[in-house]
């Protein structure tokens, strides 16, 4: 089957293997003080089709690893559901959960830390098999006369077509088939049947010990991931990073899972080794029909290996869709900015790099409305301010951002006590901040002694000299409020005056192409301009 046909068949698979609905994972690190939880994953919906590779990209700390860990139940979901083959796995516990874990495995980022260095490679890969008592010897009995079947001896009876041993009952003799995943010869299984009226009893004995089968299975796995059988008795110390990651992959495959979360599997490796491990992962997917969630921050790797990509920011999926299409023509402002950071080898390219301001906000206190609103270069502006110049607008945004950050920080007990006692009124340096925000060039150069000796009022006046009068009055009011110690009021004023739908409402996932791509942005609503032309006009300005 050619590659294209494979892709085709993947898409037509109607039923998704993994379906995530409104998933939230909060870390409550505040403890007993009842502070805000860290909203690592804050309402995520997507699905992964059987045999597909979904890429998950985003900056560090955006929650992609937490999302991956929640999918394999290493973290407890705060809300929402993860449907695996239509069954919600977030509610599983005890033996049910343990049984399910066979189906979903994870490969960790750091091969240094994910392998216990006091165990041999063989023991490491074997451990999952020991935990689950592999092989369980599920037996399917194929009886042409459809009698009621009972089993004695080794194994448990199953109707599953994935049975470890299949016994076909004939008139005189029985034929035995052993599933490919089990390194055992058919001749090792002894079967006899006793018929009693309308029922038949199959007695079965396996002539090989489980522990021998497990060792053989580990050897097979070592070969599968490109290592040698002799490595069984070596320790992780004796391997390179790439080899160790192969051991980690072998361990995750030991239980024959359907779904594997790859948590930045190549980030810790040399570039030369990365390609080899990626090729291995692709080969294994083809060989075993695996479904991958591939978490990465290296966009070129994602483009190489993934069928679809989800872009994550601050616990939300900003855009999700077909890899090539998304990379060629990003719709969401965040995706646009992120992709613009990929160096383009073509010197005649027209696309310019978008530099985002500041760092992502704290997931403990995410911004209201759209999570990207504090840094979005194409944020929707209120109609009356649509025409003011870039620098002023940037200044307003920055000032709002600084106030927002200060609001989060000023919860310290000392700070609060000081304020109660009237010792300190927050910022004494608000004029400096305004100067820096609205006249970055002048601040950078040496300030003259005369300027420094100016009164605050005059300096404020000078800083806001280029700012339109409509904006100026609001800034001045805000400064007054700050000087009076009322920062939250000042922030409120700025948000009310200069804020828009981006701050006030959470966006929705809008479908942005025929292939089902979705983007989480207000700009896809009909009343606003699409992000891309706005980007173009902004970049042209510069």
């Amino acid at each position, binding site marked *: 089957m050619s590659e294209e046909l494979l892709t085709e068949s993947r898409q037509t698979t109607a039923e998704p293997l993994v379906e995530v609905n409104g998933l939230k994972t909060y870390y409550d690190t505040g403890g007993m003080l009842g502070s805000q939880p860290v909203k690592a994953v804050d309402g995520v919906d997507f699905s992964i089709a059987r045999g597909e590779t979904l890429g998950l990209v985003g900056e560090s700390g955006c929650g992609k690893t937490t999302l991956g860990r929640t999918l394999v139940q290493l973290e407890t979901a705060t809300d929402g559901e993860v449907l695996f083959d239509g069954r919600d796995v977030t509610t599983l516990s005890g033996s049910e959960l343990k049984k399910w*874990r*066979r189906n979903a495995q*994870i490969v*960790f980022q750091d091969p240094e830390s*994910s392998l216990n260095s006091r165990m*041999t490679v063989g023991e490491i890969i074997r451990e999952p098999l020991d935990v689950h008592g592999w092989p369980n010897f599920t037996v399917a009995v194929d009886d042409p006369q459809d009698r009621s079947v009972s089993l004695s001896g080794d194994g448990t009876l199953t109707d599953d077509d994935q049975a470890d041993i299949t016994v076909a009952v004939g008139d005189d003799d029985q034929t035995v088939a052993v599933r490919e995943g089990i390194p055992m010869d058919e001749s090792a299984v002894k079967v006899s049947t006793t018929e009693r009226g309308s029922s038949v009893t199959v007695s079965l004995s396996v002539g090989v010990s489980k522990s021998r089968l497990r060792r053989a299975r580990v050897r097979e796995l070592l070969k599968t991931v490109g290592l040698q059988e002799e490595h069984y008795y070596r320790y992780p110390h004796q391997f390179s990073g790439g080899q160790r990651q192969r051991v980690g992959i072998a361990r995750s495959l030991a239980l024959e899972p359907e779904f594997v979360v790859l948590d930045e599997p190549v980030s810790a490796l040399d570039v030369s080794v990365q390609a080899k491990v990626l090729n291995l992962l692709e080969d294994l997917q083809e060989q075993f029909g695996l479904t991958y969630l591939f978490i990465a921050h290296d966009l070129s790797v994602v483009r190489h290996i993934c069928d679809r990509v989800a872009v994550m920011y601050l616990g939300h999926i900003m855009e999700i869709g077909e890899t090539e299409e998304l990379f060629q023509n990003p719709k969401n402002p965040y995706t646009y900015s992120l992709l613009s950071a990929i160096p383009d080898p073509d010197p005649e390219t027209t696309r310019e790099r978008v530099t985002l301001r500041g760092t992502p906000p704290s997931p403990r206190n995410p911004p209201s409305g759209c999570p990207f609103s504090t840094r979005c270069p194409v944020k929707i502006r209120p109609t009356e301010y649509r025409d003011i110049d870039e620098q002023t607008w940037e200044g307003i945004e920055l000032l709002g951002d600084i106030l927002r950050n200060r609001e989060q920080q000023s919860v310290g007990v000392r700070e609060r006590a000081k304020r109660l006692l009237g010792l300190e009124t927050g910022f004494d340096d608000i004029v400096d901040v305004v100067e820096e925000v609205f006249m970055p060039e002048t601040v950078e150069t040496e300030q003259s002694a005369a300027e420094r000796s100016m009164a605050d009022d005059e300096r404020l006046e000078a800083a806001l000299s280029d700012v339109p009068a409509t904006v100026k009055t609001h800034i001045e009011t805000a400064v007054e409020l700050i000087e009076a110690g009322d920062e939250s009021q000042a922030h409120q004023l700025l948000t009310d005056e200069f804020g828009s739908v981006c701050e006030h409402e959470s966006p929705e996932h809008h479908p942005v192409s025929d292939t089902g791509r979705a983007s989480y942005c207000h700009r896809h609503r009909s009343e606003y301009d699409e992000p891309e032309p706005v980007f173009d006009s902004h970049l042209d300005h510069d």
Partner: protein
Amino acid sequence: MSETATTELPFRERLRENPRPALLWVGVLGVLLALEIGAITSVAVTVVSGLAGAVASAAAAVLGGPVVPSIGGAIDGALTSAAHVADGLPSLLSRDVIPNQGYQTPDGTWHGTFLGLEPKYAWLLRLVLVYAYMFAFLWWCWRGYRVYVRHYRFADWTPRDDMVDRLRTHRWGQFGFVVVLLFVGMALFAPAISPTSADQNIYHTSQYDVQYYDADTESVETIAVLDANLDSASRGAGTTNIGPWQYDQYDRFHPFGTMSNPGQDLFTFMAYGARISLAIGLIAIGVSVVLAGGFSMLTAYYKGLVDLSVVFVSDSIQSLPGILLLLLVVAVFQSHWLWEIYNGGLLLALAFGVVYWPGLWRAVRGPALQVAEQEWVDAAKSYGQRSVTTMRKHMLPYLLSYLLIYGSMSLGGVIIGIAGLSFLGLGIDPPTPEWGRAINTGQDYVTTPAWHISLIPGILIVIVVTGFNALGDGIRDAMDPESEGEDAGAGATASGGGA
């Protein structure tokens, strides 16, 4: 493929394939054991009867009633007969084979000693042979490990190999190891290396006699050990004084001299006292290592409320002065049945265990938290490993080294602590020998010719505690080469229980 076939063999078959080295090793081991079969069985019987006694008295206290004495009697009878059998077995290195007790006739010949040697040399010979035997035995065990590595192990390298290599070049650690071995040997072989037995010289002195040549009557006379001891006691200036390396008037040799009252042999007292110190130290450290290790893994794995409650409990214990708590235990339990076991030794050991675990737990909590954050613990969780197994397989091996280090370092502290209690007149009751009591009884004579009574036990305590600390240092550097130079074990260094 043929290589796969050979590596497939389990240990048993590997042995069968190449049995020569193993058989050779087992043969020599058998010979070594046979030399001391009597001593080994008697030690085993002593331990078992000690345990049985503890169980019996515990049962008597808990159940009471007439049932227990009969069972207890049966067990006691069985053990007594076992002890007789054990005594009947020959031991090459025993007082019976190499006797050092005799008398000298005026012509200068010795009677009753080994080959007619002077008691000094007979005793020295036995001492040297016993230690030579012990070191040979340990060396043979080490050889056994080498044989296993060379002939029967699959892995050509394990992380343990590096540790062993590092320990082999660690002189300070080796010094500690040798000191600890000498101490442990003293405790284990106390009956064989002391010039006389504890039963004769300490417990039942009136039931045994010594023979000596009386110059006045010009004949061999007999005197009870009790009276002989009273006559040969060291009481400082102006009276009798049997100092180190001297004979008393009954031709008995005293390597460390005699004690003040009632004049027991100090070396015998020290050797049997080492048993008590070691037993209490090991039980106490064992209890605290188990508690500390268990709690550290539980708190690191589950965190949250479990962690908080253990912090709370350990802080509460640490906020009490340890020595006060021990005094309290001694005072309160003085007439309790628990005090009966081992002359209060077990109770003291448990009390020390309870006092010491919070410190040990604090020391391993950090490493435990670190290990719990490793991804292999998450990996184990991701394929559904049980939490207890995860802790045992994936956390404990990393904590064991720390527990060993801090444990060996605190052991010195326990030994000092017990000596301190005995010095204060508490702790182990007389007549059971205990080093601290030797210091106590000798303190009035420090400035007199009988200085040895206090000084020798004092110096030995210092050397043994230093040895345990040095061993701990050595293990630490072997397990974790990065810590070399840093003083990771400073917190656990023997703080002496405050006494």
